[in-house]
């Protein structure tokens, strides 16, 4: 945890739809909703399964390894909290279960590329908010 107060945007970790995701992140678990009927994954949360239109779902652990679909490197901070991180990288990652997450790429970037393999890591930002992010697997 950083010494000074966390100054980037914070999600509503009590949001009834998404709270299980943020709670799991505190335990270093990456999760997605899974339809209890057809077993399709979905992320972020939806009130009904768009594959089979059944409502039952549970949050389940999913693979923490994935592939970069694409990435963008920010050279300007559109929120002051990101200034100290410039340039920073945001990527769309497809994990081994086929679930896509948009999140930060942290750590060394020498192997940053579309298709590069990544693994999840978890950054404790506040007492209640842990950010799931990604780091490149060494070449």
């Amino acid at each position, binding site marked *: 945890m950083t010494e000074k107060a966390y100054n*980037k*945007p*914070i*999600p*509503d970790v009590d949001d009834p739809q*998404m709270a299980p*995701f943020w709670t799991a992140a505190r335990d270093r678990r990456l999760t997605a909703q899974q339809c209890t009927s057809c077993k399709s994954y*979905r992320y*972020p949360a*939806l009130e009904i399964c*768009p594959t089979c239109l059944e409502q039952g779902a549970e949050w389940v652990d999913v693979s923490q390894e994935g592939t970069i*679909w*694409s*990435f*963008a*490197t*920010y*050279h*300007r901070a*559109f*929120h002051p909290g*990101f200034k100290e*991180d410039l*340039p*920073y990288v*945001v*990527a*769309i990652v497809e994990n081994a279960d086929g679930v*896509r*997450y*948009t*999140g*930060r790429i942290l750590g060394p970037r020498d192997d940053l*590329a*579309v*298709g590069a393999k990544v693994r999840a890591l978890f950054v404790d930002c506040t007492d209640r908010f842990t*950010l*799931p*992010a990604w780091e490149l697997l060494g070449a």
Partner: protein
Amino acid sequence: MDTNIRGKVAIVGIGHTAQGELPGQSPELNSVLAIKEAMKDAGIDRSALDGLITCKSVQGTNTDCQVGPLLGINPRYAQTLDYGTCNFSIHLAVQAIATGMADTVALCYGANARTMKFPFGFSAPNLAGVSGLMHVGGPAALALQRYKSLYGMTDEEFGWIAVGAREWARRNPIALFRDPMSMADYLAMDYLIEPLRRPDLTMVSDGGVSLILTSAERAADFPNKPVYILGMSEASQIRGEFTPSYLDREFLGLASRQIWNSTGLTQSDIDLLYIQDPTAFWVLQMIEHFGFASLGEGGKWLAEGHTLPGGSLPLNTNGGQLSECYMWGWMHIVEAVRQLRGVAGAERQVPGVEIAMYLSTQTWFKGGASIISTHKG
């Protein structure tokens, strides 16, 4: 059922406010001031209008019920579109006129996002937002990075969209960004959201714009050369980010096939191309999805100079949102009508143009296309 709308409805009036900073003017006021100009252009007064279609401002205002009190009419047909980018508004007007629900319809858009300092960088605090994915440039940069990785387009090839827009804007007295920008200037600029540079992203400005549409029969009585709608199509990807690879916007291929199939026209029939340009990469995608260049070849095609002044298919001759003004694509149609009427002015009038195509999208959710011409058939 006869679904052919070819030549049944025409644009008979165009109008707009000054573009730029209009402090103290609401989106609704800007809409009404633009409608006044469009009525003047069409040679009519409010008694001739029996339809109004407004496009919401980015703040969600400028609805028909908010514009109505200022415009002072109760037309029999009134609607508001959430994101009217001129295509969707034109399509709704054509449907209303072709079905007899209205005879003569004013379409309008008004915005004050610049002076109101609308927070375009703001993102919802979901995982992407708290991770720093902000501004429409973020998703566009993601899409462009993947494209470059797959197809190897160079920065210079891609840069022709922004550089070309500026070349056209330099010939347009309305345009807000008219300073010269060479390819060398462009390439020397830092990335904003890599691989996008500042000139690859829309400006933000205030203004209002309006069109007046009526039936082909009535259009003959108007003072200006009517510009007929020859074809129109739409496609959606309303599942949004739940659609795999949604940023590739492959759904636009459906809008493409529909408009070419329904009109019988081909890309080579198009004299002028207008593409709404919140980001330069959305333009490149539309060039490819609508078949002006094949997938992965758009950059090389641009570098051949087709879209530049003097080229065979001029693109966004007003300078677009990258260099003219920020009217969600509406000023593209105003410019297309001026070009087709032959009144775009000596500096940028393209000689002998008869058919223009206009393409626009609501990010990765919806897309639309229209083909317009001074000829009905």
